[in-house]
């Protein structure tokens, strides 16, 4: 049997080159540089650097504040992902059932998607301002002395609300299209078997939405971990003080604000490893239980 081969040509490599160059230039090179500088303590201006071995890593993980930030990041990621997904799913199910003016309704919900995270953060600052914030006044009306920027968990609550609000529309769009791709015949068959709407939802609709839900879970975890940077930055007003921040924001604080390049590189390498592990776990463990149609 004759093997089919193609003549060696530089042509395919040329076609690949732009993509490869971009990946190497903007991902592999900076990542390698981060790993290298995580083993040094470097003068900010680049005049001298001292090899310190794993000291930067040891300093980071033994630091009380680093652990507090890590704990908050886990809490924040879980809460933001859960509420973004749950609220979006509820809205999508309800929007799917709307017959009249469905498009207006959908457009209004999707609208928020167009807002950039820093703008969302800015809106958050206005809404939660200590002196003129509308939501602060609302909270006070209900007897909650909301003080964003003063009390740790008040700031955490405000950040979470803004982050969830910003993410719901993205999830909504995906859930809605997921719902609409469920065959009508399946739904009608379910209607015969089960009269309860919530029963039908959990037994039929929800499992069929699982592929969408799994995809969104990854997207949401990544969002809460990284894309909320702009919201965290604006809501802490450049003075983190005793306010909650996420791990990626701490990398920025130590590296770009504090000019501690070695320490912040070590933190970003830790973050890289965490994300890598998380992705592997997600695909290995969760994907097995998800049925793609």
């Amino acid at each position, binding site marked *: 049997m004759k093997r089919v081969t193609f003549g060696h040509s530089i042509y395919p490599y040329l076609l690949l080159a732009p993509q490869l160059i971009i990946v190497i230039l903007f991902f592999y090179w900076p990542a390698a540089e981060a790993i290298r500088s995580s083993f040094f303590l470097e003068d*900010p201006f680049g005049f001298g650097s001292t090899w310190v071995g794993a000291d930067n890593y040891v300093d980071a993980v033994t630091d009380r504040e680093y652990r507090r930030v890590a704990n908050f990041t886990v809490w924040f990621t879980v809460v933001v992902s859960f509420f973004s997904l749950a609220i979006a799913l509820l809205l999508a199910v309800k929007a799917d059932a709307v017959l009249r003016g469905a498009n207006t309704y959908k457009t209004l919900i999707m609208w928020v998607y167009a807002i950039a995270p820093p703008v969302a953060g800015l809106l958050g600052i206005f809404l939660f301002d200590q002196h003129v914030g509308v939501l602060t006044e609302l909270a006070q009306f209900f007897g909650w002395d909301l003080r964003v920027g003063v009390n740790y968990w008040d700031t955490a609550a405000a950040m979470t609300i803004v982050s969830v609000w910003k993410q719901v529309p993205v999830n909504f769009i995906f859930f809605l299209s997921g719902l609409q791709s469920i065959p009508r015949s399946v739904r009608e068959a379910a209607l015969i078997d089960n009269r309860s709407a919530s029963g039908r939802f959990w037994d039929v609709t929800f499992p069929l939405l699982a592929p969408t839900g799994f995809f969104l879970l990854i997207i949401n975890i990544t969002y809460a971990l990284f894309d909320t940077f702009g919201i965290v930055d604006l809501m802490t007003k450049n003075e983190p003080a005793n306010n909650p921040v996420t791990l990626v924001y701490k990398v920025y604080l130590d590296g770009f*604000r504090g000019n501690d390049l070695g320490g912040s590189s070590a933190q970003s390498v830790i973050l890289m490893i965490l994300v890598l592990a998380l992705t592997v776990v997600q695909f290995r463990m969760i994907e097995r239980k998800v049925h793609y149609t």
Partner: protein
Amino acid sequence: MIRSLAAAAVLLSSTALSYAETEIEFWHAMGGRLGEVVNEIATNFNASQDEVKLTPVFKGSYEETLTAGIAAFRAGDQPNIIQVFDAGAATIINAPGAVVPVEDLMSNFGSGFNIDDYISGVRYFYADPSDKMVGMPFNSSAPILYYNVEALEKAGVEAPATWEEFAEIAPKLKDAGFIPMAQSHLPWIFTENFMSRHNLQFATNANGYEGVEGTELLVNNDALKAHFSNLVEWRENGLFEWYGAAWGDNQKPFENGDVAMWLGSSASFGGLAQTVDFEFSSVPLPYYASVVGDDAPGGYQSFIGGAALFAMSGKADEQNEAVAQFFEYLASADVQYLWHKETGYVPITNAAYDLAKSDGHYERTPAAETGITQLNLRAGDWTKGYRMGFYVQIRDVMNREYGKIFSGEATVDEAFQVIEEEGNQLLERFAKTAS
């Protein structure tokens, strides 16, 4: 046809303008009203001569400006002049060869340098261990107490000179319906300048000036801790309020008339004059008479806050000459007086201070003199300044721990213990980067 003619005309005029001009760039962190005045000074400077064209560029906050300058320096694309704030002084001065010391710049490229031209309070903060001035203390400020004149009259009290007096008058202000006091920067006002106002040692190695090796913070002292205990008690009794670490959140209630006295920067003067619709005045930052004793009536002088201008190295001689020319212009009495009058930053030369006095500026607005009066108070062993690496992060640690004190998550003792521990770890790390 018309378009290409127009283009040619623009090209011609621009080449005519830039002919033989040396262009220099100046990165600064002056936003709002301060930025407007910087642009005005740059425009005036460019109009005053033909050889140099100065371009001021606003780079964001002090921290962002320093980081942008470092990144640019590492890429070999640094500006000629960069404004670096007090907390970043150690970073730039300890980097050998990042800057041309202003004293060398002026002697080599300008018309000489005499440190005695500068007012005594600003001479040595940005100096190297041999007292050579490295950064030009362009915008020097002092933390001072602003008060709402009507509010104090309503309560029938005078602005306090000491914290002991504050404790007496504060309840009266509270009864008159005001929150007696707020402040905008706990590390700067209630830590660094608390040490200076009471002539207390802030760090070993002569407040850090004598080298980075082995420098340790000395904030864990009784006077400072007693002050924070007082603040907590005053806050519980409604005599003091803290609105978080953001500067503006604490200034706003003063501008709204809710807070009667506010501790801010002497450079807040220009902005306040524009925004508030009530009469306000100022007095120096209060001190504890019991801590200072009888040696220094009125307390000791404060550190200069604000920032300095640094001439970055690696530039051609003709550009350094242009920078020297601009620095001379900037230090001239007229320009300093304009800067002082418009912003509230202190005049940094004796000539400018004399000009402000002879022009009657302080008779018209007595509040404008508070900052410079405070910087000219009695000097002590520990009032020259401080020099500590990774100090931006040390300030962040202070802000975090102070936040914990006020939210009840930590006691005063616990918080200062942590500040000292984490601060010293950061100083130790910085010492390693320098070797």
